């Protein structure tokens, strides 16, 4: 069965395409037609629909997120800012750190273990793609009430998923949060952070320059993971009912990811990589369009060469597959043998699937026919941008007028204290943290129960000159504060993470954030979002720390009820001498206790 080709699209201009089933609006579809000067093929529609989705294009949030750049404080430390896979910060002595936090909320509700595991896997690949060795992870978690039945299903699975995936990669878990609130029932939040280390002059970027250079797909083979929508497309165009919908959960293979990490580091050390990109949510679509758009502008890919786990996959499905543990690299032809030899050493399958061109077009073929022929930038960068309407929630003044003054003062303070101590949000998180390896690779200076995690860096990579330096990281967020006042709530989250880093003795340098909200189509939610971003951008300016990257997660809601707005903020700091770190807790008897601040 042949695929919908460009040629065919030319002679069947009026064929109805299932853009609505793929979540695309009519005017967005019209824009695609205008760009191409014809109707898109099924494969082209697959590419535009995922690249222009909220998740990949940030179409509702973009206009607000710009403040992180326009209000950004001057920073000597910033080497790579927003817009790349992750931000990179100069931490001195020739070293750089790259870090980012990302959500995997919805998949973790559907299948807690695999959802959370693949969340860790995804953020780790982002860090790898910058040229860094991933060196630690953190996880900020939100669950429904501790006693609500579904929490019993979701929480153990999520913790097991993070534990099994992160531990298997040999990445120490150096901190995070566990918060319970009934507002998260049905919408748990799983935000995973990864930090990596690299030499300052070895940053890798997602770019495909140099016509004639080869495009290599390496790592796991491609299966029908997470392509519910794509199968509509694969069948709809051809009235083929045999292609049942295949909405499959993404399953992680941490062992393959561990091999990928070591393989990539050896590829970097051998200097055989011109550009590199991880395959995230939009898989091959995203990697090819983004690499091509940032390079010399063109790429030719033969989709038949993509190694498949399920040989019946159609090109539309291959383009949208979310299979995990895959990377795409651009390699000069003369380096291909060395590249392949390193992949073979690590048992990582690798295949050349295409070539960089200077045509300004991304062209893909299937069975010898052209099925994609687009300007890659139109998919990667020129997605729709919305100025969504927003207004303060109707109930906001009443919510704020309802102050704690109304509460009865308890006459038995002891009972009140015991009740507080027994509440799930204040209780020990050891049930969670004891399932995470905090020791692996022996660079962990601080981890739980400290307020911030800290790592030494001198021992991370063999052969590097010694340094006394280290990095510290903390994540914080408080949905209840943000619900009362999203502007101040986001600032409080930043302030807390900033303080947590500062008290260890480290100097805060940079910020990442994960913005978890309800539907952007609800003007009241959109107001919360706009306020939170404005608050965070203003506070970053005042504290002198730039936002280097992050992630927006919308549609965390059940029916019309959204979660509390939950901006989670991560702060990275640097300490000149890790031996001088300040642990939390009283270290010996007889010390004086001082209270600083108001």
């Amino acid at each position: 069965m042949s695929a919908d080709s460009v040629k065919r699209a030319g002679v069947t201009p009026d064929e109805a395409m299932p853009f609505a089933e793929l979540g695309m609006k009519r005017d967005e579809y019209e824009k695609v037609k205008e760009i191409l000067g014809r109707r898109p093929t099924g494969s082209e529609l697959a590419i535009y629909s995922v690249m222009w989705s909220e998740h990949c294009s940030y179409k509702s949030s973009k206009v607000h997120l710009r403040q992180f750049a326009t209000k950004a404080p001057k920073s000597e430390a910033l080497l790579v800012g927003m817009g790349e896979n992750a931000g990179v910060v100069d931490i001195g002595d020739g070293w750089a750190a790259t870090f980012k936090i990302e959500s995997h909320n919805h998949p973790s509700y559907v299948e807690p273990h695999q959802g959370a595991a693949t969340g860790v896997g995804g953020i780790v690949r982002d860090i790898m793609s910058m040229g860094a060795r991933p060196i630690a992870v953190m996880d900020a978690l939100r669950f429904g009430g501790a006693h609500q039945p579904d929490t019993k299903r979701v929480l153990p699975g999520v913790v097991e998923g993070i534990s099994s995936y992160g531990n298997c990669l040999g990445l120490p878990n150096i901190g995070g949060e566990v918060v319970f609130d009934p507002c998260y029932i049905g919408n748990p939040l799983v935000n995973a952070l990864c930090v990596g280390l690299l030499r300052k002059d070895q940053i890798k970027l997602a770019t495909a320059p140099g016509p004639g250079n080869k495009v290599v797909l390496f790592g796991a083979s491609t299966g029908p993971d997470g392509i519910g929508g794509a199968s509509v497309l694969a069948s709809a165009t051809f009235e083929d009912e045999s292609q049942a919908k295949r909405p499959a959960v993404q399953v992680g293979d941490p062992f393959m990811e561990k091999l990928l990490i070591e393989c990539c580091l050896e590829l970097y050390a051998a200097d055989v990589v011109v550009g590199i990109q991880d395959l995230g949510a939009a898989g091959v679509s995203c990697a090819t369009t983004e690499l091509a758009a940032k390079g010399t502008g063109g790429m030719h890919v033969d989709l038949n060469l993509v190694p498949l786990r399920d040989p019946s996959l159609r090109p539309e499905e291959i383009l949208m597959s979310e299979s995990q543990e895959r990377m795409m690299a651009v390699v000069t032809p003369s380096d291909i043998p060395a590249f392949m030899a390193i992949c073979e050493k690590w048992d990582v399958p690798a295949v050349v699937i295409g070539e960089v061109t200077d045509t300004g077009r991304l062209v893909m073929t299937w069975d010898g026919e052209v099925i994609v022929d687009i300007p890659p930038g139109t998919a990667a960068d020129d997605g729709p941008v919305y100025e969504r309407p927003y207004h303060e929630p109707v109930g906001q003044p009443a919510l704020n007028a309802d102050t704690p003054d109304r509460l009865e003062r308890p006459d038995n303070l002891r009972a009140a204290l015991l009740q507080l101590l027994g509440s799930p949000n204040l209780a020990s998180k050891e049930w969670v943290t004891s399932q995470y390896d905090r020791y692996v690779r022996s660079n962990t200076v601080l981890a739980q129960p400290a307020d911030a995690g800290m790592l030494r860096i001198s021992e991370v990579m063999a052969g590097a000159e010694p340094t006394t330096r280290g990095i510290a990281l903390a994540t914080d967020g408080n949905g209840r504060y943000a619900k009362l006042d999203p502007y101040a709530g986001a600032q409080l989250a930043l302030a807390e993470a900033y303080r947590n880093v500062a008290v260890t003795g480290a100097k805060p340098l940079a910020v990442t954030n994960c913005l978890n909200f309800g539907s952007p189509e609800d003007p009241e939610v959109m107001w919360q979002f706009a306020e939170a971003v404005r608050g965070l951008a203003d506070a970053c300016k005042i504290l002198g720390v730039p936002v280097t990257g992050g992630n927006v997660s919308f549609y965390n809601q059940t029916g019309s009820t959204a979660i509390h707005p939950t901006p989670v903020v991560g702060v990275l700091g640097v300490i000149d001498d890790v031996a001088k770190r300040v642990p939390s807790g009283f270290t010996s008897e007889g010390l004086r206790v001082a209270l600083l601040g108001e």
Partner: protein
Amino acid sequence: MARVIVDVMLKPEILDPQGQAIARALPRLGFAGVSAVRQGKRFEIELDGPADESALADVRKMAETLLANTVIEDYVVRVEG
């Protein structure tokens, strides 16, 4: 007293990293001629009474709600005989 077996396997379209790792290792161990391996779980359930229709219905429900994760797994219930 009867024994009922519940076999739980990952659905065919779901990645099975364990099975794949085993399949990849076999040639190195000198085993040729295997095209794929999938790894699943096997539960042996000892019943107090006989494996009659009502007991089997119970086991089926148990498989559906507890033994298998039906988001990613299929199961088969059968009486050992």
